[in-house]
């Protein structure tokens, strides 16, 4: 999976949870949950969907590596490399 594919997947899943937020309007280096106004249940649903789509475990201990939009892309790219 290329980084572009991963970004498309992340955008799709974020859009499913937060359809009212434009990806282009967020700060990709700021807190992901605040930028998209998602709560811990939404975040858990996001991680569940990404883990299933990429067939990769996303342990809770790794959550600090998924803090921002850009960090999430980097994390997923490295996990699927």
């Amino acid at each position, binding site marked *: 999976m290329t980084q572009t594919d991963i970004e498309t997947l992340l955008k799709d899943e974020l859009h499913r949870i937060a359809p009212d937020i434009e990806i282009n309007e967020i700060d990709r280096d700021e807190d992901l949950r605040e930028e998209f*106004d998602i709560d*811990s249940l939404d975040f*858990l649903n996001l991680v*569940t969907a990404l883990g*299933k789509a990429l067939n990769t475990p996303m342990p*809770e201990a790794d959550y600090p590596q998924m803090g921002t939009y850009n960090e999430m892309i980097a994390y997923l790219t490295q996990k699927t490399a």
Partner: protein
Amino acid sequence: MGQFLMPSLGADMEAGTLIEWLKSPGDAVSNGDLIAVVETQKGAIEIEAFEDGILEEYLVGIGKKVPVGTPLAIIRTKGEAPVERAVQEKAPKPEPPVPVPAATSPTPEPAPTPAIPLQTDRVRITPAALRLAQSKGIDPRTLGDIGTGPGGALTLADIERANPPSPVNPMDGMRAAIAAAMTRSKAEIPHYYLAHTVDLTAAQTFVDQTNADRPPEARLLLGALYLKAVAKALRKYTEFNGYLTDGQFHPASAINTGMAITIRGGGLVAPAILDAANLNLDDLMTSMRDLAARVRTGRFRATELTDATITVTSLGERGVDQLFGVIYPPQVAIVGIGTPREHPFAVGGAVEERLTTTITLSADHRVSDGHRGALFLRAIDKHLQKPEKL
């Protein structure tokens, strides 16, 4: 012969719009079957039948907005003779009965939301034009005599020229509904308020350890522990679980914790998790995720909205230290849970940094007093200190 009525889905609902029938005339229905979908200020709600029988006939058409209590359909119970159809069919087709005067109020309905299917029986329109109108969110009934087709029918070109209705903010309705319920609450319910700071270290440690080797779909959140702790405490403090109606408190036999869920764009609903005290934490999590997902997509069941016997409202991870809820009538209590934070906290004679939150209770003074309220909050605290037993 039973009537299937437009249900009341809470203190803040006056009317609903029928948007879909899930059963047809002649279908057998059983108590609990989903039978129709109603659009309310809280979104589309699936409503259930409360008796067994045969759906005899519809009394209200799709797209019709009617007050709470209006009969929507006739359900023939077992053993009853069917209504004599032959006689009815010879007679001129009657208008659906309009049983409550308010339904015929001359003021025009507010602009329909795009979700309402179009009622086209009085409008001449070509099929292609109808499809385009639906995709543009235009109700052809609102267009007037602009049709250029045969007999004044609306054509594709007519619809292409028509402008979509100016968007109506669907949240204005919800804001008004919340305002009505909360005004009533503040005017009628003598609230008292208590707050208690709780050490969440044990609960968080339990969640971390449980989740360490679990896939995301099986993980727990602190929210599930809160709901269970509240539900368990209610087994003993029953005066916080039930309804005050007609000046009398009616304790509920089941413990159905309403979970306040914010809706993106504004507003909130508090659907119930049924029998929360008897669900284990994993089942509670499944219910919470399912409810939250359906609230976000705007489709849930009538009983989930009406059956909450108490409400729990939690600020989650990105809120502030504490909140005092406003009781949702006819309930008599609401528990508020602030954002967990690291705080200096005295433990065994020393001050340590601990994860704490402030849990609050707003309760109805007609039913309980601060002494019992304090014991109830301490019971929730006690349950959260033994998360493995929840």
